[in-house]
């Protein structure tokens, strides 16, 4: 594509690209997200490439490796357009058959079809797969359709049209009004109204202003930002351009985790291409507006997701939060007005401009508009990325889309919002999830990590896990967070080790409230949430650890005693996996575990097909 000199250049180029696209041409899409790559997507893509050449189909078939399709559990995922045949778990051996039968003859291959775990039925088309059927993919619309870095592909699907429309028709103030009217709230955690944040920065005095895209996605269990940057970096950049125009900024910085190499390289390539065609740089499309984007890689510190710590880090300092006010909108990067939003937030912006504030605010709930992407993981059948309108219920996400809990186990809790969030028990399954409803029941949207837990997950252990995380990531600047979370962790470790005493829970609650009210930044203020929410919803489980020295879920090692039950058939499977030779017994006879030797690794429990290993040292049905 040539350098675009003016807006009319852009619009005619867009039209030409749309006209060139033949929607009926067969297209093979191989998911190229990190999950599918880990499961072998690169060799599947390569096999398709070779087979297409070998069969002489180069002109008839388009082959694409796209961003993450979200259904990571079933990778490598392949979709055949225009009919949208869906094949999960494809191997290089399958590709010739797919080409000959599905692509050329339009026939479904039964043996490769997806089997819905809930109904046991085979499903042919992508839109019928319950995982996708229950979603509304707006922000994610490009993932699975376009080549992530190819700017022409993006423009032919309506990309950069929102930005061009803004340059053509909107004053900066009108952009801000539109975003306020749409009701978009920050997708990174707090849910602050985005338009308002832009307005503050627009009104702040400064010779230079900055836009920062927070891609330091550190919440364990959240990976939607990675997926967006990997799969559709141009839409994030388009959102930044629109924000830059609205605020009057000329520089954008994407602060991305170094742990996301594919996101870094795809974004870098996308920036390069946008510069080439004059969608980034000086005097963009001849409009007089100049804006450029650079990438800064994080160096591994969770606290840098906090906006003032992030600014410190970009300035080359230890990433320690600053007291607010002044807010970054007034004095941020190098003391200048700076607007920070996260990846998903920016990716929402072009949608608002293209389809209008009224359309946008018609999705979701009254006070939380639009869709939200959740990273569904943990003990759930269909893990992956799920985009649903705000206000969807937990039940819809976990059961209709997620396919429920595998292995016949029961839903126990969903952890939302990472280390800042809370654990929601069964009674909240029908709660409509939005920013405010979550806050009212002691959880938090956070960045949208949603970890499902079953009856074998111990809530005290989960609380301890999050405190370990927060304690390790606390920057150490303020005492309540540095020492308070350490004290809380010590108490939880004591309880999990069976050394808890009456009164501990009251003490823990008091300390949690102190850390919450006295910490400097969001990390410390919200650190007690996992403890407070589990104390509220699963207090009996804490009490069992303290009063009965028992872990009802069978997860806290110190409280377990492995024991072989009468139902043992003497198959010897446990003897073979035991790493310390602690199990003995004759063939076809009940085996015995020597407690002095047992290191409680749990391998015997996992391997036993007869549920004959118990974890509480007692003779009864296994847990």
């Amino acid at each position, binding site marked *: 594509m040539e350098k675009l000199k003016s807006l009319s250049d852009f619009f005619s180029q867009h039209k030409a690209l749309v006209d060139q696209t033949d929607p009926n041409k067969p297209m093979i899409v191989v998911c190229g997200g990190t*999950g599918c790559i880990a499961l072998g997507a690169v060799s599947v893509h390569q096999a398709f490439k070779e087979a297409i050449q070998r069969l002489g189909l180069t002109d008839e078939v388009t082959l694409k490796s796209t961003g993450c399709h979200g259904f990571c559990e079933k990778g490598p995922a392949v979709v055949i357009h225009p009919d949208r045949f869906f094949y999960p778990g494809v191997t290089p051996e399958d590709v010739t058959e797919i080409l000959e039968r599905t692509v050329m003859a339009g026939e479904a291959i039964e043996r490769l079809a997806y089997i819905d775990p809930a109904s046991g039925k085979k499903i042919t088309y992508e839109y019928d797969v319950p995982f996708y059927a229950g979603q509304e993919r707006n922000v994610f619309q490009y993932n699975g359709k376009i080549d992530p870095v190819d700017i022409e592909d993006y423009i032919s699907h309506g990309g950069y049209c929102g930005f061009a429309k803004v340059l053509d028709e909107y004053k900066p103030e009108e952009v801000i009004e539109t975003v306020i009217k749409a009701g978009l709230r920050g997708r990174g955690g707090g849910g602050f109204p985005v338009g308002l944040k832009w307005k503050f920065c627009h009104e702040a005095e400064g010779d230079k202003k900055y836009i920062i895209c927070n891609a330091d996605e*550190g919440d364990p269990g959240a*990976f939607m930002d990675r997926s967006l940057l990997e799969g559709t970096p141009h839409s994030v950049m388009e959102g930044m351009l629109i924000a830059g125009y609205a605020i009057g900024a000329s520089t954008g910085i994407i602060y991305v985790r170094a742990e996301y190499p594919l996101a870094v390289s795809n974004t870098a390539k996308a920036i390069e291409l946008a510069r080439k065609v004059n969608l980034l740089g000086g005097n963009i499309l001849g409009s007089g507006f100049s804006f450029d984007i650079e990438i800064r890689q994080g160096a591994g510190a969770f606290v840098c997701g906090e906006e003032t710590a992030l600014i410190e880090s970009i300035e080359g300092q230890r990433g320690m939060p600053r007291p607010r006010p002044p807010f970054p909108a007034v004095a941020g990067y190098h003391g200048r007005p700076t607007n920070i939003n996260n990846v998903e937030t920016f990716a929402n912006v072009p949608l608002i401009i293209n389809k209008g504030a009224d359309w946008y605010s018609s999705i979701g709930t009254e006070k939380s508009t639009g869709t939200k992407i959740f990273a569904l993981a943990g003990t759930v059948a269909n893990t992956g990325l799920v985009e649903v309108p705000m206000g969807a219920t937990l039940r819809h996400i976990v059961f209709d889309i997620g396919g429920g809990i595998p292995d016949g186990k029961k839903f126990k809790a969903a952890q939302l919002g990472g280390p800042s969030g809370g654990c929601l028990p069964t009674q909240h399954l029908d709660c409509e999830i939005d920013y405010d409803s979550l806050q009212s029941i002691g959880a938090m949207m956070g960045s949208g990590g949603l970890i499902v837990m079953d009856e074998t997950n111990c809530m005290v252990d989960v609380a301890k896990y999050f405190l370990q995380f927060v304690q390790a990531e606390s920057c150490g600047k303020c005492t309540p967070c540095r020492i308070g979370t350490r004290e809380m962790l010590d108490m939880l470790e004591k309880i999990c080790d069976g050394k808890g005493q009456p009164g501990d829970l009251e003490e823990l609650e008091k300390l949690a409230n102190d850390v919450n009210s006295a910490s400097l930044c969001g990390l410390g203020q919200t650190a007690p949430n996992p403890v407070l929410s589990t104390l509220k919803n699963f207090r009996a489980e804490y009490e069992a650890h303290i009063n009965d020295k028992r872990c009802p879920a069978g997860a806290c090692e110190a409280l377990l005693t492995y024991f072989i039950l009468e139902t043992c058939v003497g198959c010897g499977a446990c003897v073979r996996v035991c790493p310390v030779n602690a199990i003995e017994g004759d063939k076809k006879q009940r085996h015995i575990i020597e407690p002095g030797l047992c290191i409680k690794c749990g391998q015997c429990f996992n391997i036993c097909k007869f549920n004959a290993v118990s974890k509480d040292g007692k003779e009864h049905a296994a847990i």
Partner: protein
Amino acid sequence: MTVLELLGSMGKVTPGDLIPILQEVQNQYGYLPQGVLLEISEHTIIPASRIYGVATFYEQFHLEPRGKHIIKCCRGTACHVRGGSTLIKDIKNELGIDEGETTEDLQFTFETVACLGTCALAPVMMVDDKYYGKMDAKKVKTLIAELRSAVKETA
């Protein structure tokens, strides 16, 4: 590459570029050697104390030499609820080293990270740039045996 060449290759550097400078040094040397940090301090007028402060703040930076292969295990929530802590123990057992340590032959370094962002494949580990998902004790054993024999072959 000398320190001056390295700094030169980055264009005009300011104290604000300290993190990219350290990332580049680590790319070159595999870790942050003390002598190199002192030299950077001299050339950039960033106090050595500040360099040390930044280098020790971020998990990515290492002041000691590391193994040829980096094995990372995720301790994120999704991995934790699918047996991630057992996986960490299994890897330690197989390698015979603790978290953050390097094997004596300087072949393997074992680290845990907060989250690898590949939660759908939990529990997950990574060897250099490659992800390994849905791991268990048996798969760890096989994988590390394979890595060991690959090391022997190249030696």
